[in-house]
């Protein structure tokens, strides 16, 4: 083939050259030359290599845009360390029901299993429902003792094995407002912490200060929620608001000593500036609990302050107690297409009795973060939080809020 091409090339140039008489004939000569060198179109080496890597379907799958199996990053539990897994999602034809399942494992031997059914489009789009099963195995969850003044040097770890089944049923009263009911069952096993650098929880904390550290209640729970949501892209919002209130009753069906009510309020407001290239994001979060008479709230169901969501300058699960109040303010700015940065302040505290709610004695932390995102969702964020207890750096594959 090469020889033939070369001969054609030589013949073309060494043939007696008549001056072109017209522009058209000049073009035809060029075409002759090209015709002698035709080869089938084939992708360049980089197109072949990267084309396989970045097939549209693969990219869409990575971003969760298509159904089926996809890679999942993260161990599925705060503190699990680097983790990987696989998620699977499949819709029915009408996309009124989906099945999902996921398995994840991490380098710290955390495991998580999820499965469930979702019904996002009931009653002609007015209703939605879900049924979820979950098992979490987290062998080295941190615990520092109860209260807003717990000490960092009292750090311990415990094993959390948590099995849950839950369901929800909701109605969209309008495009922005939805209400619903939730319920389920929860079984938790607490065991010896497996972090070799810190003592196990039972070595340092007694049941008197750490409820249910030595026994395993089983709960049946039920409640309801109300959600007002005007955010345009809830996965990576730049404008709008989300106000969510939830009430849950936890009934201890095994020991009858750990029944309580819990009220959760999550207020998020996004104030766009400069065509949404700057966003002031504000969040107020509260979780208030009220144990039944003579009952306590198991420490592992208590809210916590500290970690990648609340109090990013503190260790994860740094502060436990029956109630928690958290405030966050972020100034987010776009630095490039698909990349934002944020300066943030987190304040909050835990407290024992709901009536003691106050903005005094907040734990403060502040920091800076990078967020890579698409138009619809957060892909990855790196937040560095600073507090009086040092610096914490968080790599997460979710949005802070």
């Amino acid at each position: 083939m090469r020889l033939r091409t070369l001969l054609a090339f030589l013949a073309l140039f060494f043939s007696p050259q008549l001056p072109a008489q017209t522009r058209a004939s000049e073009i035809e000569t060029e075409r002759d030359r090209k015709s002698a060198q035709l080869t089938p179109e084939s992708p360049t080496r980089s197109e072949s290599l990267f084309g396989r890597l970045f097939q549209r379907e693969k990219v869409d799958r990575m971003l969760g845009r298509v159904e089926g199996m996809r890679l999942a990053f993260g161990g599925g539990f705060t503190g699990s360390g680097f983790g990987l897994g696989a998620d699977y999602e499949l819709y029915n034809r009408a996309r009124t029901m989906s099945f999902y399942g996921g398995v994840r494992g991490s380098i710290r031997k955390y495991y998580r299993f999820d499965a469930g059914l979702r019904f996002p489009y009931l009653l002609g789009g007015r209703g939605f429902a879900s049924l979820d099963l979950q098992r979490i195995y987290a062998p080295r969850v941190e615990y520092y003792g109860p209260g807003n003044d717990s000490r960092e040097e009292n750090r311990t770890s415990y094993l959390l094995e948590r099995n849950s089944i839950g369901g929800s049923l909701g109605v969209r009263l309008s495009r922005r407002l939805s209400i619903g009911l939730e319920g389920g069952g929860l079984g938790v096993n607490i065991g010896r912490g497996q972090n070799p650098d810190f003592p196990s929880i039972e070595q340092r904390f007694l049941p008197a200060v750490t409820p249910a550290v030595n026994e395993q209640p089983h709960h049946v729970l039920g409640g309801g929620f109300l959600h007002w949501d005007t955010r345009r892209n809830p996965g990576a919002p730049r404008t709008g608001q989300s106000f969510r209130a939830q009430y849950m009753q936890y009934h201890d069906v095994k020991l009858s000593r750990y029944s309580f009510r819990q009220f959760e309020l999550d207020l998020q407001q996004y104030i766009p500036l400069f065509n949404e290239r700057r966003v002031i994001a504000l969040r107020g979060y509260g979780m208030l609990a009220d144990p039944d008479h003579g009952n306590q709230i198991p420490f592992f169901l208590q809210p916590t302050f500290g970690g990648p969501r609340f109090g990013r300058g503190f260790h994860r699960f740094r502060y436990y107690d029956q109630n928690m109040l958290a405030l966050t303010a972020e100034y987010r700015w776009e630095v490039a297409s698909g990349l934002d940065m944020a300066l943030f302040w987190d304040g909050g505290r835990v407290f024992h009795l709901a009536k003691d709610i106050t903005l005094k004695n907040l734990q403060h932390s502040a920091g800076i973060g990078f967020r890579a995102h698409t138009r619809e969702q957060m892909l990855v964020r790196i937040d560095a939080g600073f507090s009086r207890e040092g610096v914490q750096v968080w790599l997460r594959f979710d949005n802070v809020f």
Partner: protein
Amino acid sequence: MAAFRQRFLAAVALAGALAHSANARKFYEDDPLERTPPPRYVKDVRFRPLNEVVDAVEQTLGRSPDPFRKARNVNTIDEVPDGEWFVNRHAVRRLTPRQLSAGAGLDAAPSETGSWEVTGWKEGKTPGFQFRDENGRTYYLKLDPPMYPELASSAEVLGSVFFHDMGYHVPQNYIVRFRPDQLQIGKGTTMPWGTGRTRPLTRVDVLTLLRNQPRDSQGRIRAAASLRLDGTPKGPFRYHGTRQDDPNDIVAHEHRRELRGLLIPASWLNHTDVNALNTLDMLVEEGGRRFLRHHLVDFGSILGSDNVAPKTPRAGFENLVERRPTLIQIFSLGAVVPDWARAKYPDMPSVGRFEADFFEPERWSPRYPVPAFAAGRADDWYWGLKLVLAFTEQDIREVVRRAEYTDPAATEWVVQTLVKRREKLARHYLGQVLSLDEFAISENRLSFRDTAAHNGFPRERALSYQWSRFDNDSERHTRVPGNGPDVPSALRDLPTGSYVSVLVKDGGGKELTAYFRRRADGWQWVGLERL
């Protein structure tokens, strides 16, 4: 051995080139060519796909082409001959108002009353489907984002009409309204299902896709329908290089005037998604010839639309990856607000983010670099500007009617924004060359059209003229006395076949040379060198 072979081939090529150039003349009898010769018969061309990530990475990291070469496919009067890439339309041959609004055609709109047979399905970020109407024509249906009715469909239609009227090959796009019960599922139509599999498409799938779409009072959904192009698709064309299997593709695409000059219409219409992915080569057979025709397709990302949502305010101001602005944003901690972020946009979902006040022609850029734009020069941009200037406000209004905006204010906003952007383009690009065209010699006096003045942007010019006799074989100019627009007496009685040139200069250092050939019936304008 390999090095010897390379040197040998280089020597052969050089010898050939020299032999060829020894025979070359500046002008041929058929200059200026108005149409490229009929295309060669194309025997076998493969479909060549293009990956969007690869294209974005290659163009972002790739080396820019040499920007100082003249476009290689222009004729001797610096215009693009009609051909398989471009056909001169409104800027050269004025279209009537009806032709203007028709774009690539108005006679093949899908029947809105009969049934539509769904014959294909598209998943992903911008889902849609392919259908056949009762006349047997095939279309691609593109939906609006539910939160922004009319946004993408208007862009899709306006893009095809404007680019067609300029001269590019585009599909016929229509605004359509249909009821879901018009849709029938074609036999054997499948859709992606799970991991790499397909399954039969059902009516439920179609209704699911449509369930969030807004309906009008008659229960109809509005969308854009794009008539399937004639021929067989062979993949997108690149904005650089040539196809290896097409004998007609002899000019590197980055050196094609219509691709270099496309920068200007693209910036006018805010077509930030102008890249190889939104092009399509079709293998067509016409008049016994089989050849590739090169199309621009997919205009859902022009004006204020980004297909699935309004454009980001960044669009048109910065590429996807820009080092300096990114570093400024990082190290200023967001204190430095880019000027484009302060732009004011109308609160009109059908318009999205489209405005003129912050539009800066010299700064406008597509989503990622386009090699042909990087190779462009002032003469290419001037050519592109003429395509835009051909549209008067009345013309623009005529075309924008095709968007069928429900809100008259949206129509007015788009029209006025296009008028303002056109003015800004004119003010910026007209000054970069000596913007004179349509040269002629009549009664021994040079005449031309001042493009700036003709379009309402008059400039003070003190023009000077330098006449020469021109030897077409040696390309030598022999100057003759005379510095006005009148042909000097020494040149008036030259024999037929003789050439003269006139160097025209303005006071600002811009100049051009026009060439004329003596014919029995007078002077023929045959050449123009602008830079």
